[in-house]
């Protein structure tokens, strides 16, 4: 076992903070991991109307957004399931993730696509978040060391689990309405 403390570690409060970013998978890589037997992933962008958003609210799931990025996993012309990508904002972090939904409506797999730790409260600023829009792993923003890990208080994944619950409800609603096949 070897632990080397950084020079600033014991005077941590005085050291300047930096941002931090990791890209784990692209949306395509995550979709292939979730449905390895698929031969195609077809985009099925989903737009919910006001009445459908109200239905979600009535179920106790805040719809939050009318537009959802959905792909259907297909094999030989048949649908195997769906992959939905989304992002959530935590206390200081922006997390994008993908959820694989099986045909029976259950969650098949969840993968984190990227994790961005801000310097502070700029995670709430649209301008900070916008710099990551459309950036896949090839255009990764690299801040700090390549393999750095965050420690500290346990990072909560409440935002992600709430987001997964919302996606399950959105996909179920869209399929009942005939919007997703």
């Amino acid at each position, binding site marked *: *076992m*070897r*632990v*080397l*403390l*950084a*020079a*600033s*570690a*014991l005077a*941590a409060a005085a*050291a*300047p*903070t*930096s*941002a*931090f970013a*990791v890209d*784990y*998978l692209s949306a395509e890589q995550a979709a292939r*991991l979730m449905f390895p037997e698929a031969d195609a992933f077809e985009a099925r962008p989903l737009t919910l109307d006001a009445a459908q958003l109200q239905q979600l609210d009535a179920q106790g799931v805040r719809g939050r957004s009318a537009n959802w990025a959905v792909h259907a996993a297909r094999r030989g012309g048949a649908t195997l399931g769906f992959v939905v990508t989304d992002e959530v904002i935590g*206390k*200081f972090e922006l*997390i994008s*993730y993908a959820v694989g939904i099986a045909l029976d409506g259950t969650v098949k797999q*969840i*993968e*984190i696509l990227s*994790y961005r*730790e*801000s*310097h*502070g*409260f700029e*995670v709430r600023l649209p301008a900070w978040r916008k710099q990551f829009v459309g950036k896949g792993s090839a255009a990764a923003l690299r801040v*700090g*060391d*390549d*393999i*750095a*890990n*965050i*420690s*500290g*208080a*346990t*990072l*909560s*994944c409440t935002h*992600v*689990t709430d987001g*997964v619950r919302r996606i399950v409800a959105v996909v179920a609603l869209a399929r009942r309405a005939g919007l997703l096949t």
Partner: protein
Amino acid sequence: MSLVADTTRWQRRAQPLLGTLVEIGVRSGSGDRQAAFDAAFAALREVQACLSRFEANSDITRFHALRAGECLTARPITAQVLVAAQSLREASHGAFDISLGTAPGGWRCNGDQLLKLDDMVLLDLGGIGKGCAVDRAVKALIEHGVDAGWVNAGGDLRAFGDAEVPVQLRDEARGGVRPFATLRDGALATSHFDRLSRSRIAGGASTKPLLAHVSVAAPLCLWADALTKVVTLSGDTSHPLLARFEARAWLH
């Protein structure tokens, strides 16, 4: 900080598990690493299925349904964690308490037999279970031929092989991260305790929890995770229990 990353490529994946984000990093090999990732994530899910208070069929949920005087046969993972928690409870004179004050002596684990002694007891393995899960995930990676890598369950981190993992500490008050340490071939657990922190800890009336970051390094993550609570409650970075588990502690 020296970095293996300069010359070696690492593959990383992360999933929400154990109430946090769990990241796994492995050295890229010639073969497909996804089987190793899948086995490690499966090992983490297995620990969650045994220990979570929120899973209907976990041993802990089954234990909560017992009446005082009844017992159940725990799965091997549960028994391992409870026996470790029991030995820490005794060695720390009750300070390490997975009942979080509901009934510290209200349970006992003999081998795989988990006995309920008090109807009031509720168990929460949040202070030791993540460390155990990290150890089991590392074991799964090694069994799948991964020679170097790490598993980080939201601050309970273990590195193995020749991976040198820079650890950054999050500023819980203001955001951002600061360099903290480099870890190689061992585990490092950090907890942050204050009134607003997500981490909760219960101590007896005589203990005065600290308001600080506590980090503990140990060869196994189970002990690093659990010993952060002992150090927090005692305020003693030279606590005699640390030496028993080859551990070191820092307040910062």
